[in-house]
Every structure is written in C-alpha cells, then in structure tokens.
C-alpha cells in the first residue's frame, strides 16, 4: 500500500463502471403520485432520509400491493454526490418485486455489492461507503411508514458502524476476546470504522451516539474490574499487591460505604494507604459534606473500618481520618 499511498488517491478513479453508469444515467430516478398508485391499486409510500445540511439526502417512492405487501415499483430523488445517486438507484431497483419485510433486509452492503464490476473489488472507495448507508436508512423509513410504526422499532439500534454494519455486541466480543486496546488492534478483527471513519471518535463526518474508542475503553474498564473482583474472591487481602489492596479498598468504599454515607448527605475519599510497622494497613480517609462536621465522625470511621475488614476478609485494616 505504501507506494500507492504516495500518489494521492483519486476517488473518481476508484468508482466501478456500474457506479459511473448509474450516476450518469440513473434508471429509477423520478417520483410517483397518488394517481399512479390508484391506477395500480397500490399504496403509495414516500420516505425521506438525510438532510442537505449534511450534504446528502434521499427520497424513496414505493408502490406497494396492500394484499401481498409486495413492492410493485420504486423511484427515488436525491440530493447528493454521484455515489449517493448510484446507491439510491440500485437500492430502488433491489426493492422492486420484494415484500416490504424482505426489502427491510437489504443493507448498504448489498447495494455496494450490486454495484461491483468485479465481485472482489469494492464499487467505491472507503470514504464513500457512508453515502450508501442512506440507502438502508431510507428503506427502513419507508417500511415503517407502510407498517405505521416508529422506524426505531425496526432499525437495529445496536449498529455502531453503519458502513460495515457492525453491532456494539460484536465489537465488545472482539475487544474482550483479543484484549483489544486500540482501534488499530480492533480493526485486525473487524471492518468497523474502516470506511467513513465517523464511528471511531467524535469529530468525524457525523455525530454518533457511541464511538469505537468509547466501547474499547468501557470494555477494558469492565475487564479490569472483573479481574479485580476475581482476585478479591480468590486471593487473600493480606497477600495482595499494594496496588490491588488500594484498588479493592476503593471498590468497597465506592460500592458499600458511599451509599450508606450518602443517605446522610456525606461522602469520603481515599487519600493514601500504607503499611505500618505493626503490619497493619493504614487507610487515610478524608470526609466531605455532613461527615466533615459530624460529631459521630469517630463512629463513622469505626463503621468504615469494620466494613472494609469484613468485606475484604481481614483484620489488618485501620482507618485514619485526615
């Protein structure tokens, strides 16, 4: 790739002949009216997706036979680049003759495949994959209009990367299985984030509800916590490393102690922890809120100490208020 990368890629050169043909002469460009629908005893469905402000928008027209739910004919209009026009054209064609339920299964990946000249060569460059995603979205929009339901109900909301259609679950599984720490590592196992790149991190073409970097971070955090939990179960507190001792104390403070104190409007924070010469583990704690002025603070300290020792199955922890 290095040599090819040195000469700036030209997106137009990477379009397949089918894409070029469809963008120059779209077959299903146009619209249907209520009269058209009446003449064919069909139900007219008109659906929009996208917006000009984003640079891409498409409108899909269907004539659907209400008895069989079959799509008799389809047309589209589009505000968009050549790829968007070509994708919309093929998408409209693919829906014809299918039932609405069957049409809903068509994705941008099917549209892109249909536009390939060579089955092994993508129809357009990766950054243009995004333009075909609308083809899927507008079908869902049209199907939900026909069925009279909210598009959210039938759309796979778990999809994180729309271009490659990869779900959050799939990404989480990969991160877990291969202990993935970065997006580059992730992409050894999936195509997620390889196309328009919007889903990698904020700041891309489109704002997304969740990004790959978030998922990687969340899963790693979860795994770390699970590991600690596991150690807390199998390892005795006294035998833990200093770092794990602190981590498990923090965990108990966060999970058990904080909830109790919060009821009285107070909170605590771990300041430091150290082993003293008597082999005790001193935990330095600072009070906030009502705790800091409470007369019963002494008692609270005792309570925390008791909780920590019980939860961590030891008698070495000594709580000191600072």
């Amino acid at each position, binding site marked *: 790739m290095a040599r090819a990368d040195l000469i700036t890629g030209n997106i137009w050169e990477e379009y397949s002949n089918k894409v070029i043909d469809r963008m*120059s002469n779209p077959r299903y460009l146009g619209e249907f009216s209520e009269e058209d629908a009446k003449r064919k005893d069909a139900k007219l469905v008109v659906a929009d997706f996208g917006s000009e*402000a984003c*640079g891409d928008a498409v409108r899909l027209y269907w004539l659907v036979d209400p008895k069989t739910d079959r799509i008799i004919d389809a047309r589209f*209009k589009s*505000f968009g*680049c050549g790829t968007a*026009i070509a994708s919309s054209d093929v998408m409209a064609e693919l829906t014809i003759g299918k039932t609405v339920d069957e049409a809903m299964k068509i994705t941008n990946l099917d549209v892109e495949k249909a536009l390939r000249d060579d089955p092994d060569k993508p129809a357009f460059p990766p*950054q243009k994959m*995004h333009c075909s995603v609308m083809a899927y979205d507008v079908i869902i929009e049209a199907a939900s209009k026909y069925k009279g339901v909210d598009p959210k109900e039938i759309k796979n909301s778990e999809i994180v990367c729309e271009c490659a259609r990869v779900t959050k679950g799939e990404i989480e599984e990969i991160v877990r299985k291969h202990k993935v720490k970065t997006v580059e590592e992730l992409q050894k196992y999936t195509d997620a984030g390889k196309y328009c790149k919007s889903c990698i991190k904020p700041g891309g073409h489109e704002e997304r509800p969740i990004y790959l970097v978030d998922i990687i971070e969340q899963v790693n955090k979860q795994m770390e916590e699970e590991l600690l939990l596991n150690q807390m179960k199998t390892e005795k507190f006294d035998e833990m490393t200093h770092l794990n001792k602190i981590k498990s104390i923090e965990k108990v403070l966060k999970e058990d102690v904080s909830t109790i104190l919060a009821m009285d409007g107070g909170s605590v924070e771990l300041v430091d922890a150290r082993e003293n010469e008597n082999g005790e583990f001193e935990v330095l704690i600072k009070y906030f809120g009502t705790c800091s002025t409470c007369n019963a603070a002494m008692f609270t300290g005792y309570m925390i100490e008791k909780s920590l020792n019980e939860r961590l199955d030891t008698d070495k922890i000594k709580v000191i208020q600072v």
Partner: protein
Amino acid sequence: MEVYLDNNSTTPMDKEVREIYHEHEKFYGNVNSIYQKGIETRKLLSKAYDVIYPAIGARDEDDIIITSSTTEGNNAVIKTFLYNFLQGSEKKHIITTVAEHSSIKAPCAFTKKFGMEVTYLYTDENGRIDLQELEDFIRDDTALISVLFASNESGAIQPIKEIGEIAKKHGIPFHCDGAQAISKAKVDVSELGVDYFTFSAHKFHGPKGVGGLYVRKGAPFIPLIHGGNQMGGKRGGSINTAGIVAMAKAMELANENLDRMYFEVSKLRDKFEEAILKIPDTKSYVDKRFRLPNTVIASFRGIEGEAMLWELNQAGIYAATGSSCSSERLQGSEVLEALGEDPEIAHTGIIFSLSRFTKEEEIDYVIEKLPKIVEKLRNISMTYAKQR
C-alpha cells in the same frame, strides 16, 4: 472542448516559460563547483535573481531562498518560530486565520504538540479578517502573525498592508502566504510590509517543484532543510537550475500581464459570473472589490458539489468544489459556511478560476453548458422543488 477553470489550484506552463525550461535543462553543472561548468550555472542563477528580486520588490540585502514550493516556505517560517520556542524563547503564540491553506494550518497544529498556542482569526462575509480583532488577539508572547494574501477558494484578498502596519507597531514578525498573489496582483514586499513572503511558480504558469521564500533582512530564520551551502546554507540540496530560470521568466511574464489580468480576465470573469447568476437560485460570494480578478465562487441551490463536478467533467469543464465530498472528513463545506452561508447551500459551492489563457469562446462554451447541467441535476434533486 476542454475548459480548465481551476487555475487557483495549478496552472499550465506558459509556452515561453516551457521553452526556456527546456533550453536550460542542458546546464547540469553544480553551482558549488569551482570549474567552468559551475561558473556557467552560477551566472544563470544570478541572471534569474536579477528578475526575481525586482519582481516582488525585494532589496539585495533581503533573502529570496529558492524552495520547492509555497508549502516548503510556509513550513520553514512556522518552524523557525517553533525551533526558537524549543530553544527557550518565551514567544509561543502564533496568530493566523481560518482561511489559510493546509500548508499553514498543518504546521501550526504541529507546533501545538510542543506547547505553542495558535489563534485562528475568523473571516467576515467577504472572507476578510477584522483588523481590530487581530490587534485584540496580540499578546506579549506572540511570536508570529501569518495571513495569506488571498484564498484559493473564496478568492478573498486580505488587507495585507494594514496587517503589516499592525505587526510592525507591535514588533511582531509578519508572514504572508503569497501562493495566490503573483500574476493576480502587484506584489511589493516593502509596500506590503511583510517579513516573509512565499510563492510557487506553478501558480503563475511556471514549472512545478520550484518556489521562493522571501525573508526580510534581520527577520529570524532557521533552515528547514540542512545540507550543503546552497542558498547560503539556508536551504540545502542541489539547485534546480532550469526550474529557477523558468520561474524567473514566469514571474516576469506574470507582471507584464497584470493589466491583462485586471482588465481582460476580470471582464471575462464578470461575464461568466453574470451568466451564472442568470440561472435561477444561484448566488456568488465575496464583493468583487476584495476578490481575486480571476475567481468566481458560486452556489447552485439543490445540487451537491461533487455531483456538479462530475457533470462538468463529463462536459470537459474542470472546476473545484468548496464542498468536497472527497476528503475523509467530508466537511469541505466550510468555505461557504465561513462566508455566512446556510449549511444546506454550503454543500453546493463551486469555484471557477480563470487565467490569462482562458479564452472567451471557452467561457461561452461553459455558459452554454452550465444551465443544462444545472437543470439535469435539479431534476434528480429531491429538495430543490421543496425549497423554492
């Protein structure tokens, strides 16, 4: 017919320049050699400098370092201040504008990695910065002000002379990216009050791979390319003799043809612009008083920029889009948005830039084709009817 209207991006070589370039390819002597072959080359360079210096009003005590491009010159200027900062200078702030080319923006972003700070001045509906705002942003630790002469996209010309005065008043070095200046405006570095000025020959019908970096006497400079003692040690690397001689010729011709640019090319541009504006729901931007004489930036409601470029290309017409769908970020609509346009329209921007070689019949051809292309694409557009 083939009509090239992307001259702000690059230009074809002038025939005369091309001939001179070819004639000088045979002079292969290294300028550093003491024997006759070197002397020959040195003479050629000296003659070229006799043209290059006065072409931008430089004094003999100033430097015009030959570079490969404006990009190289821009990098050398910005990084001079980065190196100063890394060597302990307290000056860590650069003021520049949102209208800059990536050859300013990218090195500026790079300096931030090392702890420098960059202020990007916004531009108004004419694509120009506000002088008061510039003055407000100047700090004690401002190392450099860098403002482009004119934008290749909007064609907006900045008030360089006024900026130069402000920079001088505050004692701050001032750099001007002049990629769009030579051949489209008279350049006199002393009059403009710049300390640095960069240019590329290929923007004014010269060869690619040659450019210049003007450095006023006394202005800080640290080489970007270390090597031999070429360019007084300020830019290493064997010298591109034929390219430099050709650039000198191109500069000479650019200045000789300035009147043609001001009167004939701009008239042709105006004719073209009027024809565009006759098409319903089109708009052009930046007051002509502040715009390069060869540039039109227009929007075509309802037509996405790349789709338009495609159809123009089919008709043999080459233009640029301000809403390039082609980059990975897919957010090229920034140009028109910066000029105050709505996001829906910002994606429909097209930039046409003429040159002194653009013929009237070529413009007539585009004027004939354009309305048909617009009609065809608006027919595809779902939103055009709705908006009207």
